[in-house]
């Protein structure tokens, strides 16, 4: 990410120097130990910390030893100071973290064998790394609500560890503030107003909460029960909707998209997406997709491809409730269609001149395609009658 790169243009570069795990690290004033460590590929266990969100400090997993401090201190909120000496890994810290994870799983079921998040769950990762097979405490599930009230995501509160990332992303980034903590203490949970359905809240279904959720508390509906994380193929590309150009990653199994998510290296959007980008990909497999070139029935008849003559109905296609393309068109092979187009274009150019042809390119096609399209008109046909929907 180069998000803060631009700041430095007017600012003098000042650096602090500190030691993390024996490694000398330079960082800007105001950055935290967590940020400095991550920037230098030093991985500190963390659950509630998220680089795009404000610091919470609730999970206590990111504790480190600071020289001169009596107790382990969370690194997520710890401002770097010149000359600081930090230890992120040692036996004592390992044990502390182990105890913390032990407590986490005292209220989080370890049914990873059937969990959709297995493989990308942060808690699972740390439980594994710290050799926690089950809790040593009395297991009790304080949150049991299972809310499956929308086609975007499922909220399964039993897996919620109250890291609050979803609440923060909803407030600090999306600005919707559809969810917040409700209740307190052991009864504390993440709630919509009155624990009602998502649609009745201020939710805009951007799914950024799902994106930042470290456990299976929030999962896309589209992937539920469809495959394990490690079986999925992942392809990064750019969203096809608006002009922001968000990078996203599709997770597929057997050639079928199971879900989309942003990746932290997205140059424009980081880990954020909107509802269209994250959930609006299923149109691609809609049965109404055009799958073969087609000629209108009257054209096909003229060419002797169909037996019945046909005329274009006078009624506007907008007035037809559910128009069916097969009623008016017949499929043909590519050669037939392309030759027909080339023929007719050539005839028009010959008869009426190049300026009798108009081309409409597309703001949703690639640069290469638009380039070729305008070249066709300018070089192939010889006209500048060439526009696209930039203005619409």
């Amino acid at each position, binding site marked *: 990410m180069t*998000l*803060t*790169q*631009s*700041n430095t243009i007017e600012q003098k570069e000042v650096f602090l120097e500190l030691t993390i795990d024996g490694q000398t690290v330079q960082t800007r004033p105001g950055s935290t130990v967590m940020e400095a460590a991550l920037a230098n590929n030093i991985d500190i266990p963390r659950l509630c910390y998220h680089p795009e969100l404000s610091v919470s400090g609730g999970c206590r997993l990111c504790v480190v030893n600071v020289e001169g401090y009596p107790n382990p201190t969370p690194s997520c909120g710890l401002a770097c100071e010149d000359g600081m000496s930090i230890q992120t890994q040692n036996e004592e810290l390992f044990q502390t973290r182990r105890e913390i994870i032990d407590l986490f799983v005292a209220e989080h079921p370890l049914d990873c064998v059937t969990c959709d998040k297995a493989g990308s769950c942060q808690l699972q990762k740390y439980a594994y790394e710290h050799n926690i097979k089950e809790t040593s405490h009395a297991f009790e599930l304080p949150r049991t609500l299972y809310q499956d009230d929308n*086609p975007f995501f499922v909220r399964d509160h039993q897996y919620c560890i109250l890291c609050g990332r979803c609440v923060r992303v909803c407030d*600090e980034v999306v*600005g919707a503030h559809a969810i917040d903590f409700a209740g307190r203490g052991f009864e504390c949970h993440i709630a919509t107003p009155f624990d009602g359905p998502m649609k009745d809240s201020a939710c*805009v*279904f*951007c799914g950024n909460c799902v994106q930042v959720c470290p456990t299976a508390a929030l999962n896309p509906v589209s992937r539920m029960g469809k495959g394990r994380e490690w079986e999925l193929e992942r*392809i990064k*590309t*750019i969203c*096809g909707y*608006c*002009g*922001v*150009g968000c990078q996203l990653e599709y997770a597929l199994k057997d050639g079928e*998209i199971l879900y989309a998510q942003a990746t932290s290296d997205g140059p424009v959007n980081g880990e*954020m997406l909107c*509802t*269209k*980008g994250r959930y*609006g990909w*299923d*149109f691609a497999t809609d049965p*109404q*997709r*055009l*799958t073969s*070139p087609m000629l209108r029935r009257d054209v096909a008849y003229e060419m002797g491809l169909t037996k019945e003559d046909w005329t274009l109905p006078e009624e506007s*296609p*907008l007035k*037809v409730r559910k128009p069916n*393309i097969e009623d008016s068109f017949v499929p043909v092979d590519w050669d037939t269609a*392309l030759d027909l*187009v*080339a023929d*007719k274009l050539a005839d028009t150019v010959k008869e009426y001149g190049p*300026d009798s*042809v*108009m*081309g*409409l*390119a597309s703001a*949703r*096609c*690639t*640069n290469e395609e638009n*380039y070729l*399209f305008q070249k066709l008109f*300018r070089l*192939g046909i010889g006209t*500048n*009658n*060439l*526009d696209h929907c930039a*203005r*619409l």
Partner: protein
Amino acid sequence: MTNSIAEIRDADCIFITGSNTAEAHPVISYEVIRAVKRGANLIVLDPRRVPMVEHATLFLQAKPGTDIYVFLAMMHVMLREGWANEAFIAERTEGFDEFKGTLEEYTPERASLMSGVPVKQIEAAARIYANGERAEGKSAYIGSRGHSAILYAMGITQRSNGTDMVMTLANLAMLCGQVGKPSTGVNPLRGQSNVQGACDTGCLINVYPGYQKVTDDEKRKAIAQTWGVDDLPGEVGLSIVEAMQATAEGKVRATYVMGENPMMSDPNTSHVEESLRKLDLLVVQDIFPSETAFLAHVILPAAASLEKDGTFTNTERRVQHIKPVLQAPGEAKPDWWITGEIADRLDKKLGVERETEQWLFPSTEAIFDELTKVTPIYAGMNHARLVGEGLRWPCTDEEHPGTPILHVGKFSRGLGKFSPVTANDPAEQPDDEYPLILSTGRVLYHYHSGTMTRRSGPLDWVQPRGYVEIHPEDAAAIDVLDERAVTIESRRGSVRTRAKISENVPQGTIFLAFHWREAPANMLTQDFALDPVSKIPEYKVCAVRLENPRTKQRSPKPVMEM
């Protein structure tokens, strides 16, 4: 955009006008919200109470089409109060003295009278924007003046004086020196995934790739040479709306549409349909049988962006690589393959022979390599360099790192030119017969003509049906209740949809998104007044009336204010 999306979060003041950012560009709205949470001031100028207003420190609710008075008055106030950036004006711009005189008549009082925005709000907006004032917290930047960014979208450009509007915003930014620095600038938010790229690559009536004017003989001939010919057409072509007229008149006989749906997206649909029906040849190349496809002679199935590779250029001029995720269904092919095939076959039919291959490319990468040869702003790019974060134009040679911020130190044309602008009112004003103003736009869950989003299960679940936003008073005038049917009529047509009674629109204005084929907004919009330069139709203002289909009551004549 002159600046970067990521810079927005560090801005001290953000001025959004004519953009429903939270719904049309949610991810950019996230950056704005981050800035606001850090203490930036957010000023929103819009006729509608768009969702971003919830986060705004100042909301100027100008009557539709009157915002130009507010902008001019803001500059008037800046000069009066000495908030202009004298040093910047002296060093970096020209034409200021002439420009200065034109502002005199645009007092905030006059703007207030025209727009309904209180004088105090205009003055506050001028102060906050000019000085880059924060609401709270510390600026990310050093210096006496904070950094202010302007964000705008179609609310500014889809107007009969859209070019003037854009120039006004540029004047505003130059006046305060809020350009050429991070987190400043004049930033149009572009609505479609590759609208920037389509412009960059020359899919416009007046420019070749890289904004080289068709009338510029030297540049045109250079391109011609690369393409293996001596010269290319040097006259400006017909824009979409002009072409529809020309078609109706029989001047245009064949139209090749690639991935567009003019039946939904062009103004005055009835006229569009009439024109399209007259064509000898209408080729529609699309992924779905769009409303336009039903009028086509030939339909060519294209691959969706999820199914092909190539590059997109985003609103901040970033060229990024897209990759195929899915297999195209059936016989569907990438558009570049189809266009190439047509061109190749057309050459043969026309008996043209080329020395080198011009149409049949082995890959998009090969096309891109040719593209960069004729497009100076892309000259330093190739697919390999785009891996990762992409590159931002201008990128003029292979060492060039790309350009995050335009006009740093120097404007592209040298000195920034102040262009005097006179305020013009929208072409079609409400009158006794059509007393209301219709504004069109988008909603969060749908995109453009709805071809994709209305076929997406989750998105359509949230908003399966269209609606028109009506102010409670206007609804009460014809006894229409929330969620009930209502007919909207203009001089060009009528549509029926359900009413959503809301105070988000001011009295006298209704809002209808153009996603719904059941209630196509463009049946109503006008196509007679285009911006003289950009040829953009005035989607944002047209005169309409409402009718209650049950009682046949119609919107009454407006009561004169004052």
